[in-house]
């Protein structure tokens, strides 16, 4: 059975630099067919539903390893999907951003394989290193699940960053492209996180919106990519040194988030 693929998606798929084998799978199990229908499905949400606007995408290297590092907002990681869509629809040539999904996802029937087929591997340090050494584009949210757990009033702020991403960047000598995504906190405004219900379903929590389910409303979204940062070091530095680098990236993202929110309000 072949699922319909938008001509625009098909054109871009052909220009994607992935090593697809004889049956349309790359060495990480990314499926060409699945990219086709997934991006076709994502397109109307990206362009029309969220009216996503992208700024500064020229800061993303057109090829070779790089890490997109940004903020989370909104109860479910729609921001991740929109950044992946931005790298596919608004970069020339298009690139596939590989996110790192939470470990519980791999264990969910169907979902784990759908994530893999779309290039979203389990969030393991081994995967991150391997993707970067393979010259891929890695998508990282240093706030992790604590980031999507932000409630509506906190949507324009940042919670604490993990430090692993800086060590990863240093170890693999990958540039960091900071970005901010504004609007997804309005699309899925969490009023509370149902943790017990989440545990029941095998997730950390289920976000509850004023209308109950975490179904996104059509909020405008602006994504701003900042200038690439090249950190120097080996990744074996003391925590103190690493934390300073983390703080500098965090500060850049904070500034970008203000800019993204301003651009969002201006239109």
């Amino acid at each position: 059975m072949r699922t319909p693929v938008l001509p625009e998606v098909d054109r871009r798929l052909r220009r994607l630099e992935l090593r697809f084998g004889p049956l349309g799978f790359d060495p990480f199990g990314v499926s060409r067919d699945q990219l086709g229908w997934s991006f076709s499905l994502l397109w109307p949400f990206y362009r029309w539903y969220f009216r996503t606007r992208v700024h500064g995408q020229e800061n993303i290297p057109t090829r070779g390893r790089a890490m997109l590092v940004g903020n989370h907002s909104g109860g479910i990681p729609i921001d991740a999907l929109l950044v992946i869509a931005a790298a596919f629809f608004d970069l020339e040539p298009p690139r596939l951003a590989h996110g790192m999904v939470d470990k519980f996802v791999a264990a969910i029937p169907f979902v784990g394989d759908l994530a893999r087929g779309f290039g979203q591997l389990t969030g393991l340090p081994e995967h991150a290193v391997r993707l970067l050494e393979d010259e891929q584009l890695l998508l990282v949210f240093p706030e992790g699940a604590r980031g999507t757990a932000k409630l509506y009033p906190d949507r324009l702020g940042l919670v604490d960053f993990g430090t692993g991403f800086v060590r990863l960047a240093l170890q693999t000598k990958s540039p960091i492209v900071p970005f901010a995504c504004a609007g997804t906190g309005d699309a899925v405004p969490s009023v509370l996180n149902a943790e017990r219900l989440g545990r029941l379903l095998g997730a950390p929590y289920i976000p509850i919106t004023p209308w109950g389910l975490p179904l996104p409303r059509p909020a405008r979204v602006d994504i701003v990519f900042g200038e690439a940062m090249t950190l120097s070091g080996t990744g074996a530095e003391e925590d103190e040194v690493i934390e300073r680098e983390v703080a500098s990236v965090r500060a850049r993202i904070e500034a970008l988030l203000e800019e993204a929110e301003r651009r969002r309000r201006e239109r």
Partner: protein
Amino acid sequence: MRVLVAGIAGKLGRLTALRLAAAGHEVEGLDRRPWRDAPREVRVHALDVRKRPAEDVFRRFRPEAVVHLATVAQLSLRTEDQLRQNLAGTRAVFDAAHRHGASRVVFVGRHTYYGAAPDSPLYHTEDEPPVEVGSLPQLADLVAADLYAASAFWRFPGMRVAILRVAYALGPSRRGLLASYLSLPRVPTVLGYDPLVQVVHEEDAAEAVALAAEKGLHGVFNVAGPPPLPLSKVISAAGRKALPLPAPLLRLGLARVGLAPLPGLAAAHLQYPVVVDDRPFRRATGFEPRYDALATVESFRHGV
């Protein structure tokens, strides 16, 4: 070079022996099972590697290299005998090789060593410990044999020892663990799970084993063929029909109702990938598989 192949009558044993003989090596073999149409230049001794007469072969032939393929993977036949074969057999082969002056031993193990789990990474490297041994006790024997073989590194410091962890070999012989799984009337899978599977053509696997012996490889190496494919694609390329069952049903063994029993591939191995990184082996030997994944599965399908 004189090469003794323990487990020569198995699929991989035969192909390795033929490949070594074709390259001009002097090849003899040990196996309890017969190999009736063995070529004249390959002498096969119908002996168990654990029995005394097997050592006479070492004594007389004085192999320079020993290839140990005599571990049992018929995981559905879990018996005391199998345990003895894998561990005692490995000990007997290494000890005899050492006593009779072999300078190289190649132990052929399996990539399932690493185990399958939701949080196991794609592309395992040789330094990783095995995970989830507990979920599949049958696998524990093979893991133990792999780890025990590595004791040769300190027991026999002068010997070149290669421990290979080889991905699922598949080919026209239709023998081996994956082949018997794919040969079930309906191939049971776990509903909602489609793990990546690494297959290597049996001729490529034999080439890899022969290279390890010829190059006198020393260390632990993953051996794989082309990039992995999802299990569902392997099944359909093999011309087979999958029977997706919910995981609990499979675990309860209800899959046996009206079906042949699952040959030892526990549910976890049908849910999560075991994919290995074989770059060190390729670098050390220059190995390149000749068959891509589709050609490998199709050679199994058509038996040629």
